[in-house]
């Protein structure tokens, strides 16, 4: 099989690059191992500022609505964080005085939404906050197994029963001007968010929960759908098994599911993620990139991998594959001229040029796609 570009990794970076290339009429395949970091996305595209309008447009075409507004996000444990581009699920507040009176609604027995913490933050700001619980008969089936009260399971129910919750909230509501709800709505269809907003007698804001992230999963599904609608080939649940590399050019790869059928392409993008996604692998003595054995930028002294303080930035997070200015990774000291490394596989090695986190994923994805569209191999 032959493509213009094969992308290894179907997370935020891989999908953004894939859509961008398909929009330009290129023929692209994405090889995806399955779950990715979108599943624990906060909804905030941190560090995406420089490409804000471009990513908002790309997402909008995929049906993913964003808030391209500078302001504050109310975080899951009650702190505020500066944002400039978020998913529409995240309500962006101009300042900390988010309301006069707040009604915070949770599901009885759902411990992954931290109402008590949020309420105290608000009370400290002089905002009264009432916490109330709804308990739907339909949700009792979730409780028969004590580990089922988790965001995605609730969200699946809410796709069907959100109107009942709205009815309950209308009864609970008194004179509050803001209603806070957990981000467990609109897993299948983000339009539900608007319907809830319209059906309730006050402003509504959705606040994050413990992962899995319902907005993140929905976004990932929409982006994948967009990529496929544009004609892209998404190989789900597959893994790259080998790459044919000769004189600084990769000509083809093989995958586990396709067995002997080789995927040929002019360009390759590696977007396999960081440690959690197994794009990077660590042992007691080294950190390596497992697919191709790309050259790494890291410390060989394990003592230098960690900061003793959990909440400080950790040196291991800086580790990533080594790249040149155009994001070409190296193998045995030589750049691979038709491959680009994008997203978390870079760690913080390119932080100054491309930022971190979601911003890194998107900005390096655009950079790689632009280079490929420009045709400079």
């Amino acid at each position, binding site marked *: 099989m032959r493509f213009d570009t094969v992308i290894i990794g179907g997370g935020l970076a891989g999908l953004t690059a894939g859509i961008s290339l398909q929009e330009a009429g290129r023929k692209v395949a994405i090889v995806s191992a399955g779950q990715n970091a979108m599943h624990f996305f906060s909804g905030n595209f941190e560090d995406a500022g420089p490409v804000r309008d471009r990513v908002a447009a790309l997402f909008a075409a995929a049906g993913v609505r964003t808030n391209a507004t500078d302001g504050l996000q109310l975080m899951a444990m009650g702190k505020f964080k500066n944002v400039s581009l978020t998913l529409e699920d995240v309500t962006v507040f101009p300042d900390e005085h988010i309301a006069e009176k707040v009604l915070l609604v949770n599901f009885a027995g759902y411990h992954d939404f931290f109402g008590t913490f949020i309420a105290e933050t608000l009370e400290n700001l002089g905002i009264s906050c009432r916490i109330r619980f709804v308990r739907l008969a339909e949700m009792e089936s979730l409780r028969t197994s004590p580990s089922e009260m988790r965001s995605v399971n609730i969200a699946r129910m809410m796709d069907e029963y959100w109107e009942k919750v709205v009815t309950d909230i209308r009864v609970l509501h008194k004179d509050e001007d803001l209603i806070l709800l957990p981000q467990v709505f609109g897993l299948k269809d983000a339009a539900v968010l608007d319907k809830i907003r319209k059906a309730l007698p006050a402003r509504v804001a959705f606040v994050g929960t413990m992962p899995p992230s319902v907005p993140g999963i929905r976004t990932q599904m929409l982006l994948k759908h967009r990529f496929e609608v544009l004609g892209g080939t998404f190989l789900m649940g597959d893994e790259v098994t080998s790459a044919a590399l000769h004189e600084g050019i990769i000509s083809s790869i093989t995958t586990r599911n396709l067995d002997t059928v080789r995927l040929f392409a002019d360009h390759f993008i590696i977007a396999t993620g960081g440690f959690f996604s197994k794009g990077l692998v660590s042992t007691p003595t080294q950190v390596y990139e497992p697919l191709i054995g790309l050259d790494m930028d890291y410390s060989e002294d394990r003592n230098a991998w960690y900061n003793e303080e959990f909440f400080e930035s950790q040196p291991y*997070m800086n580790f990533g594959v080594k790249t040149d200015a155009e994001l070409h990774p190296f193998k045995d000291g030589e750049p691979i001229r038709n491959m680009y490394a994008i997203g978390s596989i870079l760690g913080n090695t390119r932080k100054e040029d491309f930022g971190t*986190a979601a911003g890194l994923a998107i900005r390096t994805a655009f950079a790689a796609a632009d280079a490929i569209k420009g045709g400079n191999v």
Partner: protein
Amino acid sequence: MKNNEYDVIIVGGGITGAGTARDCAMRGLRVLLVERYDIATGATGRNHGLLHSGARYAVTDQESANECIRENMILRRIASHCVDETDGFFITLPEDDLNYQTKFFESCLSAGIHAEIMDPKEALRMEPSINPDIIGAVKVPDGSVDPFRLCAANMLDAKLHGAQVLLYSEVTGFIKDGDRIVGIKTFNHQTHKTGEYYANITVNAAGIWGHHIAELAGVNIDMVPAKGALLIFAHRVNGIVINRCRKPSNADILVPGDTVCIIGTTSTKIPFDKCDTVTVTPDEVNLLIEEGAKLAPALASTRILRAFAGVRPLVAADSNDSRNISRGIVCLDHEKREGLKGFISITGGKLTTYRLMAEMATDLVCEKLSVNKPCETANAPLPGSDGKSFREVAQKIWDNPTTGQKAAAGRLGTGVTNIPAASSLDQSLICECEQVSVGEINSAIERWDVNGLRDLRRRTRVGMGPCQGELCSCRAAGLLAKAHGCTDRARADLQRFMTERWKGMYPIGWGDALREAEYTQWIYKHVLGV
């Protein structure tokens, strides 16, 4: 009688202090126990959790070996819900001297330990994780004991017999009347208030910190802090304890406990000022894995959960090698020793022999107070081990117990009846790794002096599983915030808890452990915004 006067004050909330408080309270004394932090924060919570058969000491110290086997048999009765009767093997590897096995076997028998020489093939059949190259194996009645559970049960029973327990209260000085200690001064780390408490006798049961307590009292115990490093593996690789049949050395005991197994230990002398901040070095980690894999080769490829270290309270002899110092029980009557009345130190010993240590200390207290009541702790079961087995109890309350309910019954024994489980809300899980329910956590907060997440972990195992608290700690923090009515405190507590978990994770921070760490650090920073 004022409300700050007691017959006996016990300093130290480890297993020795808890056991002594229980024994004293059962003999009718008015007891106060003070502990600097929480229960089992010192060596009690930082060891293998091995219920010694005594075999390890049989060759070098017959007296200790005999104490161990007697106490081992007692704990199986009185603390059945804390003990896992696994048995143990002492294996001989090709590089070891098989002649030592003969000497070892005979020494076990003479110490009263029921040892049995096994055909290596039969040993491998019984415990398939053992190194298949073994040339000899001896079966002994070792076991596994949950030290947190044991300590909590002793503490609870002491309180049920009238003892008062002050946690987070550090002894800052003694009140003297001439040549007699008549009381203590304390500082509470949570309320930041000072206190004074009076008693005829004060028992120093503070483990390695007993050195400092003795100094405050004006006497000297020549102790040697010996650090031991250990690793916890994410699976229960072995079902039977595996020891190396040779002179005690590094990393030669592998103990299964609950869902994990623990390899250890090392033995290194450290200065007193390092006792509060022991950490595990990469060299120690490497040594533990390398030596551990000789006992059970699967350890080389098993995920490690965390590394930790404890400090043994050894009492000095004339040797420089910390392994040759006696691990026997030391009960010091400072009146006879230095002429200081009203002050006793109980130290040395082992987790397995804590009850005997408590009995010796309490006998001395009673002698001084002219109380003539015999010790009953060897026969009276601890709360949780009273009555029938927990399985029968579980069956009485639940027709068809879930995994979580079985886990709770395993932790609490018959005490599981105290957990609210009436509604599905009580049964929902906070900690999925260890299957701890909302009901169990709320019950621990109510009954067991839980001030924060770390206290909760010692009483319920919340955060001890493979995820190391990444998800459950936030949920539990929510319950604590509700119970204590303060989220700022709960948030700060959550930060301390995660910092503490990380301290045991980064020494083994590679492979899946690093993946988990990256995920956790991401969630806390970007998703939760802690």
